[in-house]
């Protein structure tokens, strides 16, 4: 088993929480993993990405090769497109449709969806709406984790355990909101 996952978004949107849940679950499964992330200047509202690699064999490189990503999981639609050169021919794009506009030249959603439509069966998610239904718009990253879950090679139940572990210290209510958000995402992907 080997999965190469690109997590994409804008600095401050919570892609590292998504990574932390997957990391936790992968480590529990006894899998090897490497997860390269961006710290420093770009975190201030710039484009950020994380390369996440999971395997039952030894992993050498921290970075994913071009054309070899099994999944691009993005919490922002324009950011999903930025990493298309990494996508494998059989790879899938799962992205939120909530634009984060803090730049000039942001294209129209029609243009973005047209580009996303050129990939193989993209999973497009109204993440903020589903998160609000789950109890908090701040949980939209967990909606996206849920939507991406079927492509990670890790069972959703293991990822839920990861959410419990990660958010446990913040109280029961926060855990439950995030689990509901996660399940809403899973349901959407499986539909």
């Amino acid at each position, binding site marked *: 088993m080997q999965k190469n996952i690109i997590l994409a978004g*804008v*600095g401050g949107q919570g892609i590292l929480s998504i990574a932390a849940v997957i*990391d*936790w679950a992968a*480590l529990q499964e006894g899998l*090897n*993993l*490497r*997860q*390269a*992330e*961006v*710290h*420093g*200047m*770009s*975190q*201030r*509202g*710039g*484009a950020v990405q994380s*390369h996440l690699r999971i395997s039952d064999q030894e*992993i*050498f*490189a*921290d*970075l994913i*090769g*071009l*054309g*070899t990503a099994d999944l691009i999981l993005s919490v922002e639609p*324009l*950011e999903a*497109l*930025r990493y*298309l*050169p*990494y*996508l494998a021919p059989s790879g899938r794009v799962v992205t939120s449709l909530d634009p984060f506009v*803090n*730049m*000039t*030249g*942001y*294209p129209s959603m029609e*243009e*973005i969806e047209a*580009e996303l439509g050129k990939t193989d069966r993209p999973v497009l998610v109204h993440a903020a709406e589903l998160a609000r239904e789950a109890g908090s718009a701040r949980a939209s990253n967990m909606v996206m984790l849920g939507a991406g879950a079927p492509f990670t090679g890790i069972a959703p139940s293991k990822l839920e355990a990861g959410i419990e572990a990660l958010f446990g210290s913040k109280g029961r209510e926060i855990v439950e909101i995030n689990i509901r958000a996660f399940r809403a995402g899973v349901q959407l992907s499986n539909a």
Partner: protein
Amino acid sequence: MNRSRLLLLGAEAVAQGAIDAGLSGVYAYPGTPSTEITEYIQRSSLARQRAIRAAWSANEKTAYEAALGMSYAGKRSLVCMKHVGLNVAADAFMNSAITGVNGGLVLAVADDPSMHSSQNEQDSRVYGRFAMTPVLEPASQQELYDAMFHAFELSESVKLPVVVRLATRLSHSRAGVELKAPVEQNRLNAEYAPGRFVLMPHNARAQYRHLLDLQPKLEALSESSFLNRPVEGRGPLGIIAFGIGYNYAMEARKAHGIECRLLKIGQYPPPRTQVNELFEACSEVLVVEEGYPVYEELFRGYFGSPKVRGRLDGALPRDGELTTDLVAAALGVKLPEIAAVPEIVANRPPELCKGCGHRDMFDAINIAIRENADHHVFSDIGCYTLGALPPYNAIHTCVDMGASITMAKGAADAGLRPAVCVIGDSTFAHSGMTGLLDAVNDRAPVTVIIADNDTTAMTGGQCSSASGSKLVKICLGLGVEQARIRTITPLRQHLDENVAVLREEFAYDGVSVVIVRRECIETAAKKKRRSAATGQ
């Protein structure tokens, strides 16, 4: 999760390794990608239990010297910085290789090839060669952890500082790391050895001779280091892979089924016998280095060698960080077609946070400075460097820590009026104070704007060495007149009065300081969350 297998960033593996290897103190100034080493030690319960000293230093030079002092006193010390920080600490570093050390002294330096968050991509291994001291360059998080034990032992056995070099991709990447049992800390054992530590010329000559005599031993130690090893392989093609270059070479070999011999190197000076064996067995050798082509150049020699391939003959790019694809292409692999980034994807540069006080500061500066024919603003390194980007376009230089004040002074000496600079509180404490003293001593007509947000914000909100009333006292102490130290609050409702203050100080024919004080909104929010959590 149990203690034996942790998910750690490379930087955190350095930290945990140092703690478990009997560390007594870490000294550092924050800088991407090295900051997380010290932050991890500050959070570690084992470090607290062992009373490991871990507060931030004013700059990399003071950090290095304190680490050397702790080593002199017999204990194991760690000093951490980013690559350009080593320029600041270079005097102490170079000379500590001449004095040598007592307790183990390890310098963890994090390079930033491709300049993700830096102004250059200098390669710290060059400093290691310059000082003639051992350098370790582990390839994985696990190796980093294990290498910390080795680094302290090596430092104490050869009595030299040992450099652990890591690059962004290792420092900021996580992996599972198996921990070993922690070893005891050293006891206080200050060394009475003025012949070593008093670097007057007669002592320095003897110590330098000793350092030169040690070099063959360092090379011999590299031959048996766990960080250096030949990897199984055959054929006329060879790869010498240094540091994380090994990862990309192994990945490319595996992904594309490339037949070749491979020598992994993670301890310098390189093991001469192993290098010779590879060169003898191969008709072509690709040198894979994350950073400068330091060893490729040496292997080529001045007159060149047709066998050697790498960054200098275009097999690999001369600059920027490596990837698996670049190494595969250098090995002759034809890479498959990949999708392009769609044309509609515009850049998303970083920006100042919404509500950040620097925004209001730049609004005020722009109004006041643009009333002048010449409106250059010298600046420095921190979040406020983002003021160089639209919509502000407010600053016109950013070179090295503290350079804003001294560059403004030099420009004032040349006749530029007004001579204005912007520097953060932490950067001022790091390297701005001596420059301000120069300006005061020379009565230079400069306006020094200190953006005091009470933190080292760009690297994630570490404690600043001088902010608030301490800043005022420092400026007074350096000789700035009390009437010429103005403090303003960067808020929209104060814009007019702030512009008026700046206008007055720009016009003043002498040194003035305008402290622009408002807490970083990120650290303020963090404090609020923390007090809410403890209030529950």
